[in-house]
């Protein structure tokens, strides 16, 4: 059952070791602190690439599991595991961390050591969230990552940083503490915190939750995740946190932390509470669609460039939630794809906005204009990233949105048509803001002399652009691996779940065993749609 090796533990705790090593350096050794942090995060990324090798593509269930006793009563285990969905989210995290470190190379000038320690501790928490298979352990990492993120915003952020940091923590805690009560309640019903064990019992029909109870539990979990995503109308912390956070904080926040919410929905809400998920799906979809359109409309009228990108996240994440609650394999995979694509392209947008801020120390769009003349390279990258974010075919945003709309259409054509509005609107706000920032006449004298992208910035942006392009054309590399995991979730959330499909032995859920022929079929569909 447990294939040896401790890759997952290494992935979680290696950054913590790196952070400890950083603490040993002298405070004013800025150069070595940065280099060491970068090395740690790059090595971590290389480690995470091993996942691609070690996780089989077509086998459902969790892989590379690690299981150790931790607390006797109540029985809490240190249980880790990875599947096709969490694997890519881990990769996204480990990829964006070195990028964030590079992005903060010069813009972070004070309390440098603490900054990089916090960034690495954040990585510990986030990777831990994605790899935990024990509800309690999951909650633990979920809470642990709060503090580094809050400090990143609160210490190194902009003017209203303290307000934003406190708001961020209080919003998240409000959700998560209810989730804790939900977790304990679920434990009372099942006698275990172990996710695969609970799934197994649900699949075999050994555990049936009363509809009322199931709904309350679903809401306890869902609220915590919805705040994190953030789903309309719980999104109000996000613009503040994003605008006030330093660039690296924004990248990690948009790139990875928001995905913890959608990941939680996929991993916990749907499989554990299938009936409640179906009953709530209409409402959730409505909120998601409102979020898509509302986020886009607000983004369109934003005078603040960073806030514009923040609201675009609300819109894009709405797509992800919609894809999840359409309960279709294709839309589920689209949701996962969109999570990754959004991480890359919005991360890149925040990087670019941060670069503009480094030069002019403002986010106001009216302060810019005509920047394409002094900085053609940065302008080109910005256009490329904006196009990927608005879903231009061949770039990463397209794949996710397309799959989501396709799957959602199968479920309900109305949802898909409303959501499609968001695609159009995103083109509006991104291109319009691009035009105002980079084209037109130069209205401010200081804009004539802003320097173009430096070598370090070019390095970051080229990396991001390559990944964007590769995800746009090589999507089969990812969907081939998320397919089975998505199907597993779809089967688990099926209200008519075939109990006999559960594997008779083994503790991992086999509820979603996908016949090989079906895998081929899905893959063929995917190829055809592209």
């Amino acid at each position, binding site marked *: 059952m447990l294939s040896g090796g401790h890759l997952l533990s290494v992935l979680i705790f290696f950054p913590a070791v790196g952070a400890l090593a950083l603490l040993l350096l002298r405070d004013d050794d800025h150069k070595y602190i940065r280099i060491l942090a970068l090395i740690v995060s790059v090595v971590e990324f290389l480690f995470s690439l091993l996942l691609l090798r070690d996780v089989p593509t077509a086998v459902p269930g969790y892989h590379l599991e690690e299981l150790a006793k931790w*607390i*006797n009563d109540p029985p809490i285990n240190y249980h880790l595991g990875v599947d096709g969905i969490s694997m890519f989210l881990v990769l996204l995290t480990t990829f964006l961390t070195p990028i964030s470190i590079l992005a903060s190379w010069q813009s972070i000038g004070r309390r440098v050591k603490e900054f990089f320690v916090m960034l690495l501790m954040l990585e510990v928490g986030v990777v831990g969230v994605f790899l935990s298979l024990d509800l309690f352990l999951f909650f633990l990492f979920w809470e*642990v990552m709060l503090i580094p993120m809050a400090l990143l915003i609160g210490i190194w952020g902009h003017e209203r940083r303290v307000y934003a940091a406190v708001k961020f923590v*209080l919003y998240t805690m409000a959700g998560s503490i*209810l989730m*804790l*009560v939900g977790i304990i309640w679920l434990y009372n019903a099942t006698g275990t915190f172990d996710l695969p064990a609970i799934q197994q019992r649900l699949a075999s029909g050994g555990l049936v939750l009363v509809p009322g109870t199931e709904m309350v539990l679903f809401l306890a979990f869902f609220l915590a995740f919805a705040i994190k995503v953030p789903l309309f109308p719980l999104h109000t912390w996000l613009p503040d946190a994003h605008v006030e956070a330093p660039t690296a904080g924004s990248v990690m926040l948009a790139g990875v932390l928001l995905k913890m919410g959608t990941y939680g929905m996929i991993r916990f809400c749907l499989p554990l509470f299938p009936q409640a998920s179906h009953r709530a799906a209409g409402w959730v979809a409505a909120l998601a669609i409102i979020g898509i359109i509302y986020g886009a409309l607000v983004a369109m009228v934003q005078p603040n460039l960073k806030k514009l990108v923040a609201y675009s996240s609300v819109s894009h994440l709405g797509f992800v939630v919609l894809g999840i609650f359409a309960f279709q394999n294709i839309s589920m995979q689209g949701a996962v794809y969109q999570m990754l694509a959004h991480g890359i392209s919005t991360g890149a947008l925040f990087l670019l906005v941060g670069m503009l801020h480094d030069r002019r120390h403002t986010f106001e769009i009216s302060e810019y204009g005509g920047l394409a003349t002094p900085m053609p390279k940065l302008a080109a990258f910005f256009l490329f990233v904006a196009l990927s974010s608005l879903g231009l075919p061949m770039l990463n945003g397209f794949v996710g949105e397309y799959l989501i709309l396709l799957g959602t259409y199968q479920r309900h054509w109305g949802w898909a048509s409303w959501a499609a509005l968001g695609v159009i609107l995103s083109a509006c706000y991104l291109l319009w803001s691009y035009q105002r920032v980079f084209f037109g006449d130069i209205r401010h004298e200081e804009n004539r002399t802003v320097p173009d992208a430096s070598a370090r910035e070019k390095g970051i942006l080229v990396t991001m652009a390559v990944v964007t392009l590769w995800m746009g054309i090589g999507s089969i590399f990812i969907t081939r691996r998320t397919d089975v995991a998505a199907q597993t979730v779809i089967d688990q959330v099926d209200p008519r779940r075939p109990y006999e499909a559960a594997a008779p032995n083994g503790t991992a859920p086999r509820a979603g065993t996908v016949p090989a022929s079906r895998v081929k079929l899905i893959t063929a569909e995917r190829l055809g749609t592209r």
Partner: protein
Amino acid sequence: MFPRTIDLYRVLPELVWGSFGTLAMLLQPFVRNRNFFTVLAFVGALGGTGASCFAFRNAGPGFYGLVQSDPFSYFFHLLVGTVALLVVLAAGPYLDRERLPFAEFYALLLFATAGMGVLASAQELLTAFIGLEMSSISSYILAGYHRDALKSSESSLKYFLLGSFATAFFLYGIALIYGSTGTTMLDKMVSADPSSTLLKLGLAMILIGLGFKVAAAPFQVWTPDVYEGAPTPVTAFFSAGPKAAAFALLLRIFATVPAATHFWFWAFWLLAVLTMFAGNLGALVQTNLKRLLAYSSIAHAGYVLVAFAAVTSMAQVDSANAAPAYAAVLFYLLSYALVKLGAFTIVSQMGGAGEKHLSLDDYAGLSQRQPVVAAMLSIYLLSLLGLPVTAGFFGKFYIFKAAVNSHLLWLAVLMAVNSIIGAYYYLRVIVVMYMREPSTEAATAAPVGFPLTVNVVLAVTAIGTIFFGVMPNAVLNFILQPNLLGH
């Protein structure tokens, strides 16, 4: 009726604490060396704590059932003993700084500890009353120990007046219970008639008396003033020791007397909710850290009372399953004692001569001036807030679990709401330390010195907080045993 040797063994910790306290008083006129008394008190506290192991080895009822040595009393003896030990270490530098006499302070501290020991092991109500008085009277004096400071005297007077009032309630309660059941022995009340009004009234009186001691709303009004006025090491002691001991007695009474459990669930429910809100809402508006921590200790008493509600409601349906709820109380008190001791010790040191620097503004930018102190205080605050990898998280987790186990969902949700209110003001302190720039005057001032003994206290409490946050097993396995209360 001479005590047998085994009886003496079973109260050995109290004997050690008491005799070292007496010794300190006797030697005071003869020894001029102040450090001598610190060492003496340290040895006494350590000896008493060690003696509790000895008492536990010889577990069983002592003095014909007046006291009982069992895992429960062992746990609390260790707890209050350790608290006393750490307060001795933390108080030395404070007494030095404020030029206060040493011997009496330590003597009173040890007497109070002995009283708390009696409270933890009392099986009979009058014995418990003696323990309560021993610890209370010492506490009244300790609160006013800085007699030249106006606030300290005020604190002492308030504590004394309200405290004696509460003790009177307690005593009256005992009388009523005796009138109803004909006994003051707890284990003989097992068969008492639960419907007796006299018994209910007596228990209500006891609940009021002890509710005062643990600062449960609506009997909490004295807490902020007393905690703020008392010398800070004494405040640390108050919030950790006597509170734990009073909770111990409350738990023993309401766990042993079955008549007590039926009726009291709603009383505890109400007390818990009132206390949580009173503490947290009060703390929201505080700008003085010492006062803020005082209000927070009210709130935390409320959390413990949630577990009490769980205990009493659990005992109705399924007494065998009540063990985790007891364990929740014990674990919470442990984690809470560690954290409050550490936090108040830092406040005591940072306060400076005359305790002038207690305001939150004095902590602005502390992370840059004294990063280690700021990090330590953050650990304590995060534990109070209940964030993972601290003991406070598991404490809260077990209480949540006990509440959900007993189907007290509304109580759990209200507690969750309170945790979030709490998060706000604990975070505010962290924000001030990490995200504000120090005032110019504070930035140029020399960093506040932390003597070795204080550092030991901080290290022990911080490491303990993290250790029990990662390995709660270490203590849980012990307090989860079925014969916790010796039967």
